[in-house]
């Protein structure tokens, strides 16, 4: 099944070189080391207002009421949340920017996403109410769950894991 490249040219010469603009338009991912984070910054206070306007209807006033995913950890729920389960703060920026709000995905500005990120991290007790989230600070937020994460420990064969 391995690729049999005998008789193949070095390159088929198909496709067009990607221009920098094309790459920039689609390259929206954000890595744990902060690569991909845009310019801009946000704070929890500003995020709270945006959250109330654009998110609370689906995730609850304080992020625990639903009807959709709990975003904030609480003592009364076992729900997996940003605070107790997410290993990287950068993921929050990445995901909210690409997929939320669910009914208007891709509609937020980078500033709005920074504010919301700051708000949700603060609501989960992970950053102060005054912390400014930007390309430098966000990757440094310590996520309690990170230490729990291990790569696949199944090594194949008869083992059940």
């Amino acid at each position: 099944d391995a690729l049999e490249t005998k008789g193949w040219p070095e390159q088929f010469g198909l496709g067009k070189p990607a221009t920098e603009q094309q790459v920039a338009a689609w390259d929206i991912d954000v890595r744990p080391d902060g690569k991909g984070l845009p310019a801009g910054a946000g704070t929890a206070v500003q995020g709270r207002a945006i959250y109330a306007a654009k998110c609370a209807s689906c995730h609850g006033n304080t992020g625990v009421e639903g009807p959709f995913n709990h975003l904030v950890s609480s003592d009364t729920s076992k729900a997996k949340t940003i605070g107790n389960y997410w290993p990287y703060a950068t993921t929050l920026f990445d995901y909210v920017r690409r997929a939320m709000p669910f009914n208007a995905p891709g509609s937020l500005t980078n500033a709005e996403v920074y504010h919301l990120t700051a708000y949700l991290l603060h609501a989960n007790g992970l950053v102060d109410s005054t912390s400014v989230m930007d390309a430098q600070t966000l990757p440094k937020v310590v996520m309690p769950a990170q230490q729990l994460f291990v790569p696949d420990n199944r090594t194949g064969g008869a083992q059940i894991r």
Partner: protein
Amino acid sequence: VLLKQSSGQVIQAGLAKDSLLLQDPTKVLGPLPSQLGDRSPFEQPVRKPSDTSSRTPLQDLYGTITPSDLHFERHHGGIPAIDPHKYELLIHGMVERPTVFTLADLKRFPSFSRIFFLECSGNFRSGKEQLTPQDICGLTSQSEWTGVMLATLFREVGIHPKASWFLAEGSDAAVMTRSIPVSKGMEDGMIAFAQNGEALRPAQGYPARLVLPGWEGNTNVKWIRRIEVSDQPFMTREETSKYTEQVGDKVRQFSFVMDARSVITFPTFPAVVHKGWIEIRGIAWSGRGKIARVEVSTDAGKSWQPAQLQEPVLDKAHTAFRYLWQWDGKATEIMSRAVDDTGYTQPTLEQLKEARGANMGGYHVNSIISWQIKGDGSVLLRPENIR
């Protein structure tokens, strides 16, 4: 039904379809050939949809190919509508030549076809007796996929020798992303543009998707628009908040491979069986290789007998099994367990809990499924409590 003669004359040559059913079909000319075939009005298999997924009716199917319109669905932002003429796949990052491919470009490369299953790693439900195979594990289906091997594309763009991960990104409303090891991409990853002989269906990623034989469904990114090659994973929401499972006091991440499992598809709820000979039927599969054997128990797990496997047994593919059983009419339980060619044996839920802890969650639950045969011939799931 009108019949056009070679002379051009049109004659009345049959009756409307409904009225036919009342008649002796040998005495009335039926509808003539057409552009597209239909199902019989007596056969209307359907998926079972929720807001986020739709389950294949495994108990209604035969053989191993899933009709494309019954392939399971799992979306995170609905089905995007994509114009194939505008479709582009961007490959960039740690490559020599960042490139944009049109769909036509992709189809001009050397192509490849292969039959294998897809399965959502959240494919398990239990908890009550009135569940069908569709309810329990209908988030798996099988197709013949055709496309261009990822290795071919990586070769074309000049992938960096130190590249170790790539991001696969969809163009759905969730802009679904997963980080995948380059090694898997090189081994048997494919950008598929066809399924069961025809173009992909929109629900399965039209016009092009990633397929990774044997790996959890979510990694097989549909409607793929971008691949970014890197030397580390991107830690997207789907591979951190979701598709990870608690194992002991740790959280297991990047648990890509689907372990071996099997499911009996007949007899299962709501079938009613009769004393005498019964062919127990089902499918078995493994993300690690071929099914080596399937064993069936008709005495609630006390003893196990080998089932017959339908040939050809393909790598990482649904494999039909059959076991002929003479039921004496007494209440019992029947179950199946798959063994793959790496020596892995499908475990019980007990064994899984022992290995992972009681809080293991709902991913990669591939445990043996047991069916109660009641004395009156009714068949019910033996429910299990996953938490």
